[in-house]
């Protein structure tokens, strides 16, 4: 029975959560660019940005100011509605999928339990996939509406790559779903609490899905890197191949939006990898109540940071795939591997749960 004040309070709390999450995401994206430039620079034996602020920490702010103040060049004869829609769509969808990601346990204030998640959908995982599927449009439409050869080719190639690897992404997750039994992200994390027990003996391995789904994790992470158009799968936006790919004809703030949406997608996919395979926010928890509430969030962010660092490390180290190798890899290797993983997991789950 919801009285008005109850609904109003729920709405207020949700709005506050949304504001906090959006603010943290924007800051995270900005400083992810800093981290990327620094890490790639040190891999290449040079300093990254170091002039603006101590060790270049104000560089993202300078970049943001640059993007806002730059001249906004729009080519002739672009399809205006679609040209303006594409970057906004990219950024909106990139932020939409954060709405179901759980960052930590819940805490209680004045008798109300507030969880570190904007909303916990029954089909939360499918919601993230739905938003990822819609993200293909921003790339394809950006390429087409620019009325230019290289963006069109880059946009079509990039969107074809994204839809191909989305299949493997979905399949890789089915093994995890079979073990967790629920599509709700909070439920999947909660099914990974505790430790693995073999024949009643407590091994001190955490009950994370990575230990029973290694193939699933490899397929998921490879497909995720390809789906976010990152090295080694970033041919559609490599400079030497296609100028800038689908975002060639975009300048200043619209280009910044594409840029931000790429990093936001990276963060989302890494969040999902932590939740699905590495136990989400589970980690050693001790101390007073405030520490007990904040430590899970800290463990989640630590695992997330490891994934993001790995992404950046790959960018600094690996060469890129050629487009036909990329597509062949996705369809002829990763998809069958994902299917085999599903088959093997289902056999094992059926065998274990049979009386």
């Amino acid at each position, binding site marked *: 029975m*919801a009285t008005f004040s109850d*609904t109003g309070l729920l709405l207020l709390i949700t709005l506050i959560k949304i504001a906090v999450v959006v603010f943290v995401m924007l800051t995270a994206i900005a400083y992810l660019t800093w981290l990327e430039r620094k890490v790639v620079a040190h891999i290449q034996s040079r300093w990254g940005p170091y002039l603006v602020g101590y060790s270049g920490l104000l560089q993202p702010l300078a970049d943001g100011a640059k993007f806002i103040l730059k001249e906004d060049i729009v080519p002739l004869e672009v*399809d205006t*509605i*679609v040209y303006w*829609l594409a970057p906004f769509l990219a950024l909106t969808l990139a932020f939409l999928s954060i709405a179901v990601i759980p960052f930590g346990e819940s805490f209680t204030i004045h008798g109300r339990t507030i969880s570190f998640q904007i*909303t*916990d*959908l*029954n*089909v939360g995982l*499918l*919601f993230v*996939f*739905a938003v990822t*599927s*819609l993200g*293909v*449009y921003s790339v*394809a*439409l950006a390429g*087409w509406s620019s009325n230019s050869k290289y963006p*069109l080719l880059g946009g*079509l190639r990039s*969107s*074809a790559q994204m*839809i191909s690897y989305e299949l493997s992404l979905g399949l890789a997750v089915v093994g995890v779903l079979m073990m967790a039994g629920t*599509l*709700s992200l909070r439920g999947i994390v909660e099914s990974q609490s505790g430790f693995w027990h073999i024949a009643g003996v407590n091994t001190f391995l955490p009950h994370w899905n990575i230990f029973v789904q290694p193939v699933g994790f490899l397929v998921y992470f490879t497909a995720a890197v390809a789906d976010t158009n990152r090295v080694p799968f970033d041919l559609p936006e490599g400079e030497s191949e296609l100028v800038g790919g689908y975002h060639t004809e975009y300048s200043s703030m619209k280009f910044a939006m594409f840029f931000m949406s790429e990093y936001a997608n990276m963060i989302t996919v890494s969040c999902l990898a932590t939740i699905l395979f590495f136990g989400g926010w589970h980690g050693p928890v001790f101390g007073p109540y405030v520490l007990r509430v904040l430590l899970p969030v800290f463990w989640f962010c630590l695992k997330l940071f490891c994934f993001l660092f790995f992404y950046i490390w790959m960018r600094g180290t690996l060469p890129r795939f050629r487009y036909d190798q990329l597509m062949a890899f996705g369809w002829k290797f990763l998809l069958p591997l994902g299917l085999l993983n599903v088959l093997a997991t289902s056999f094992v789950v059926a065998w274990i749960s049979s009386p």
Partner: protein
Amino acid sequence: MPVRIGTNLVPLFYIFGALAVVAALSVVAQRMPVHSALSLIVVLCSLAVVYLLLGAEFIAVIQVIVYAGAIMVLFVFVIMLLNAGRETPSHRSRMARWLGAPLVAAFLLEVLLAIWKQFPAGASHAAAAVDAGPAAIGHLLFRNYVLPFEVTSILILVAILGAVVLAKKEF
């Protein structure tokens, strides 16, 4: 805590229903096929929200993933590939244009009246909400409807083969 559809979400049905109708009119009225395709995506997504409000959470997400996220991508690709530009105006008779819209409106009103008579607003109360999550749909799919399921998988295989053969350049 799963999503609960309470009574205070009913106005959303009308909002998204109106959005779906406006977007469908836009599909029919736009000159460029790309704009029609984008309007159709809006129709599909608003219908997905309506399905969610009607308690079909799994079908809603499947609609977005499969219909709006894969089928419409196919449409958009083909439109871009074939470089479909503006449509040339037709050379049909003027009388058809003046008679067409009123006749369609009359037909629509007639069917709406038939529905109103058949299902008066006060008399239909919904049955108790059934759990329509993936587990329930899966149970039904693999027990009662396993034959249509297998047949659709063969259908998809045939469609893949047909599409590849039809769209190839050389034989």
